[in-house]
C-alpha cells in the first residue's frame, strides 16, 4: 500500500525485536480475536480512486454550471487563487493544534491576527480563535449568556435562521434550559422588545435576518440591558459587515456568525468557520480556543494558546464548553482572504453584492405574479411567488437554473410554501439575472 513505508522485511525485523511471532499476538486482548474478511472492496490505485470520485462528483450540478442564487446561510463568493494555495502549505495543512508554541508560531500568529480581524469587523473588543460554524457558535453564545447572567432562558427572534433555532432548541431542551422562539417573521414585524423581561439571560437576533431584512439592534440592546440580559447578534453573511453598521456599534454583547462567505467554498455545508466575539468583561466565560501574545525568555514577542483553564482538558466537567478544536484551516482561509481584501476591498465587495441584489430586485419587480417582501436587504431577499416555491425551484433546476431556497425546505408546515429566498453575490452576471427572470416568467 503506497501510504505505508514499512516493508515486509521491516515488519518481521520489528516483530523479532518485540518478541512476537505473529502480529495477532499484539491484538490478543480483543474479545473474539481478530476479525477478517470485511465485506468491503480491496484498495484502489490513485487513478481508480479518482475515477470513482469523479464519477460521483459529475452527478452533481455545481454552482459554476448554472445561474446560481442560492443562499440561506451559505453564500457563493469568489475565493482568490492565492487563498487556496496558501492553506495547502504543508506547514498549515498538516500541523496539529499549537500545543508546542515554539514550533507553532505560524499557526499562533495567524490566529492572533484572525482574532483581531474578527473583533474589528464585528465592532467588539475580543474574539476567539473560531468555532465549528455559525449555528453551533450561536448555541454556545446562548450557553455563555446563561453562565454570565446566571439565568437559563433565551428568547429567539423569528428572523433567526431555522437551523440555528433548531440547534439552540436541541441543546437547550437536552440541557434543561428554557427557550422561547418566536414564529417565523418574514417582514421583521415582530415586537421583540415587548417580550423582554427579567427572566431572560439573552435575546438572539439575526441581521441580515433569515428573510434578508436588516434589523436595527439599538433599541433591542437597550431593552436587554434594562432587564439585565445580553443581546446576542447573529449573522450568516459575513460580507454584509463590510457595508452595515457593526453589531458591536449597535450595542450587542456577543456577536456570532458564519464566516464561510470569506475565503471558504460552499462545500455542501461544511467545513465552515464560526466567528465569535464579545466584550472584554466576559472573557472568562467565553467558549473556545484563544490565542494570546506573550514574550519568550529572550523577551521576543510570541504567541501561545491561553486561558485554557476555561477549557475541557483542564477543567473537565467544569469547562465552559466541551469544544476542543476550532476550525483552524477555515479560519486561516478567512484571514488570508480578509487580508487580501482589506477594509477598502471588503466594503467594495459588499457594495457590489448589494448593487447586484438591488438590480435583481428591480428586475423581479417587473415580473407579474411575484412580489419582493423586503423593505430593506443586503444581498438576499424573500420573493412571494404564485403557487409552491419548492416545485418552482425544482422546475427551474431541471432547466439548469439554481433559483434559490424555498422557505418551506427549512420551515415545512409553516404556511410559507409560496416564499423563495434569493441571494445575489458578486458572482452573478447580468446574463445570470436575465436568465433567472426569463425562466421565472416561463415557469410561473
Amino acid at each position: 500500500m503506497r501510504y505505508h513505508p514499512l516493508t515486509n522485511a521491516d515488519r518481521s525485523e520489528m516483530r523479532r525485536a518485540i518478541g512476537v511471532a505473529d502480529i495477532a499476538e499484539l491484538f490478543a486482548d480483543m474479545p473474539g480475536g481478530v476479525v477478517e474478511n470485511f465485506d468491503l472492496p480491496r484498495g484502489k490505485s490513485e487513478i481508480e480512486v479518482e475515477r470513482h470520485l469523479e464519477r460521483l462528483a459529475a452527478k452533481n450540478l455545481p454552482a459554476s454550471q448554472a445561474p446560481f442564487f442560492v443562499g440561506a446561510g451559505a453564500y457563493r463568493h469568489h475565493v482568490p487563487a492565492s487563498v487556496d494555495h496558501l492553506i495547502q502549505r504543508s506547514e498549515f495543512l498538516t500541523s496539529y493544534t499549537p500545543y508546542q508554541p515554539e514550533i507553532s508560531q505560524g499557526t499562533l500568529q495567524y490566529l492572533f491576527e484572525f482574532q483581531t480581524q474578527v473583533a474589528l469587523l464585528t465592532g467588539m473588543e475580543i474574539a476567539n480563535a473560531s468555532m465549528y460554524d455559525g449555528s453551533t457558535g450561536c448555541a454556545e453564545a446562548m450557553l455563555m449568556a446563561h453562565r454570565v447572567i446566571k439565568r437559563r432562558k433565551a428568547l429567539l427572534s423569528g428572523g433567526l435562521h431555522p437551523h440555528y433555532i433548531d440547534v439552540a432548541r436541541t441543546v437547550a431542551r437536552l440541557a434543561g434550559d428554557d427557550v422561547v422562539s418566536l414564529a417565523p417573521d418574514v417582514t421583521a414585524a415582530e415586537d421583540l422588545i415587548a417580550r423582554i423581561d427579567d427572566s431572560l439571560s439573552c435575546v438572539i437576533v439575526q441581521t441580515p435576518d433569515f428573510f434578508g431584512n436588516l434589523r436595527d439592534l439599538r433599541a433591542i440592546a437597550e431593552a436587554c440591558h434594562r432587564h439585565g440580559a445580553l443581546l446576542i447578534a447573529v449573522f450568516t453573511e459575513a460580507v454584509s459587515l463590510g457595508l452595515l453598521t457593526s453589531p458591536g456599534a449597535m450595542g450587542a454583547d456577543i456577536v456570532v456568525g458564519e464566516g464561510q462567505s470569506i475565503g471558504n467554498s460552499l462545500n455542501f455545508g461544511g467545513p465552515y468557520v464560526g466567528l465569535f466575539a464579545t466584550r472584554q468583561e466576559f472573557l472568562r466565560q467565553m467558549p473556545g480556543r484563544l490565542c494570546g501574545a506573550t514574550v519568550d525568555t529572550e523577551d521576543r514577542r510570541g504567541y501561545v494558546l491561553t486561558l485554557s483553564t476555561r477549557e475541557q482538558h483542564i477543567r473537565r466537567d467544569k469547562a465552559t464548553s466541551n469544544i476542543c478544536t476550532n476550525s483552524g484551516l477555515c479560519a486561516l482561509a478567512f484571514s488570508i482572504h480578509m487580508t487580501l481584501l482589506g477594509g477598502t476591498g471588503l466594503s467594495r465587495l459588499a457594495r457590489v453584492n448589494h448593487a447586484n441584489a438591488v438590480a435583481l430586485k428591480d428586475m423581479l419587480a417587473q415580473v407579474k405574479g411575484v412580489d419582493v417582501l423586503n423593505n430593506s436587504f443586503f444581498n438576499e431577499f424573500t420573493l412571494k411567488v404564485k403557487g409552491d416555491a419548492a416545485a418552482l425551484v425544482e422546475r427551474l433546476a431541471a432547466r439548469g437554473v439554481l433559483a434559490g431556497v424555498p422557505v418551506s425546505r427549512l420551515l415545512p408546515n409553516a404556511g410559507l410554501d409560496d416564499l423563495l429566498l434569493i441571494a445575489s453575490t458578486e458572482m452573478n452576471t447580468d446574463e445570470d439575472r436575465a436568465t433567472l427572470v426569463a425562466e421565472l416568467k416561463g415557469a410561473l
Partner: protein
Amino acid sequence: MLDQLKKTEAPATFTGNRGLELEEPLLFDIGRDDATGVDIDEPAPFASRLGGLERKEPVALPGLSEPETMRHYVRLSRKNYSIDGGIYPLGSCTMKHNPRLNEKMARLEGFADIHPLQPQSTVQGALEVMEQLTHWLLTLTNMHALALSPKAGAHGESCGLMAIKSAIAARGEAATRKTVLVPQSAHGTNPASAALLGFELRTIPAGADGIVHAEAVEPLVGPDVAAIMLTNPNTCGLFERDIAKIAKMVRDAGGYFYCDGANFNAIAGVARPGDFGVDAMHINLHKTFSTPHGGGGPGAGPVALSARLAPFAPAPLLIRERDGLRLKEDVEGTQGFGRITAFHGQMGMFVRALAYMLAHGADGVAQASRDAVLSANYVRVKLRDMMSAPFGDRPCMHEVLFDDAWLNGSGVTTLDFAKAMIDEGYHPMTIYFPLVAHGAMLIEPTESESKASLDLFIATLRNLGERALQGDEAAFHAAPLHAPRRRLDETLAARKPVLRCTQGAA
C-alpha cells in the same frame, strides 16, 4: 582560514533574521487601510436599500497586495512543524500522512462548489458519497446507523449523549437515570460533554495495570446510571480487555455504552466495536481516516449508533428511496432528538475520508492498524530499558505511554525533555496526558513512519535520555535554543491576556 571561521560564533544580525529563519511582523504592522490584493470595480451608482443601517465609518482592517500576502503567510508557515516535515508523535492525536489525492478530490467542483440547500435532485453524487462513507463506517464498526453531522470528536460525544438522553427520556427514566461513569484516564471532553447535558459524573478508579476492570465498574452500576464512557483502546494505549463484560453489565442494568472512538485507528479493520456491545461511538475522521488536522481543525466526528439508539439519531437522515437518495432534514415523525448543526456536516471531510478508505481498501485499513500497533511496540521495546512505564512492561496498542519516574533526581522534567526534542528537530510526544501517569509522555508513531525514521527517533530519544541522566540539566532547562522562539511565558499570557492587536500599538 576555514578553521578560524569554524570557531566564529554567529553574531547578531541587523535584521534579526538568520539565513532562512525570517522574522515576520504582524499583519497590523505591515498592512495599510487602502491596500488590497483583490481588484473589484466600484458598482455604478444605485439607490441602496439598507434601511438607514449603512456603516458610517470605514472598516478599519489592514490590507496587503497579493505578493505581500503570499510573503506574509509563506513566512508564517515556515515557523510551523508539520507531519509532512517530520514525525509528529503526539499520542492520542494520530498525526498520520495526509494523502494529497484526498485534497484534490475534495476540491472537485462537483463537491466543493455545491450548496447544501440546492435541490436534492442536483446533488445525488454528494448524497452517494455520504451513503458510501456510511456503509464503510458501519461495516468497519458493525453498528446500525450513522449520524453524519457532528463537526468534531467532542461534538460527536454531545451527539451520542443526546441520543442516549433521549432514549432514556423515551423510557420515562429521565428523572432517575442521570449518572455517567467516566474513568480517570478519559479525555477531558468526556466529562465536559456529559456535564453540559446535565449529567452527574462518577469517576471510575483506574486499575493498577492502566485499564478499567469489570470489578471496579460493578459497584458503580445501578438504576441511576445512564451511560458509561470508555475510550478503547484507552488513553494509556492499552486495550480495555474487560470491555465486553463491562458493556454487558451496564446494558443489563439499563444503561448505555458510549465508546470514545478517538483511538479507533488502532483496531480499524481488525476488530469491530459493535461486537463489544457499544451503543454509540464517534469516529474522528481527522484521526483514523486522515483528514488533515489543519493546525487545529476542521475535524469531523460522525457517530455510529447501535440498533437501540438508532431511532434517536438527529437530523438530517439519509434515506435511500426508489428514485434516489433523500436527506430528511427534520425529525418530524421520528424519535430523532433534533439538530446539532446547520446543514449536513463536514462534506469536505467526508470526501477526503472516503478517498482514504477507497485507496486503502479493507486490507489496507487493517494493515494501517497493524503497522501502527507494530511501530508503537517497536518504540516501546527499544526504549523500555531506559524510560519507565507506569503500568509495567506489557504490549501496547497504537501508542506507548511512559512516565517521568526514570528522570527522578535528574532535575529534568517531562517538559524539559520535550523542549530538548524540539532542538533535535522533532515535535515532542503528548506530555502530561493522560493524568493517570505522572509526567506522562505518550508516543504515537502511526503507520506512516519508515523503519529508518523510527530508528533515528529512538536513537535520538536514547541520546537525550542519557544526557539527562548524566546531569546535563542546564541544557535541558534552556531548551529549545534552535526554534523560532525560546520558551514562551505562558503565565504572563494568562495573567495579562492580550488577545488582539490594539491599532497603532501592535
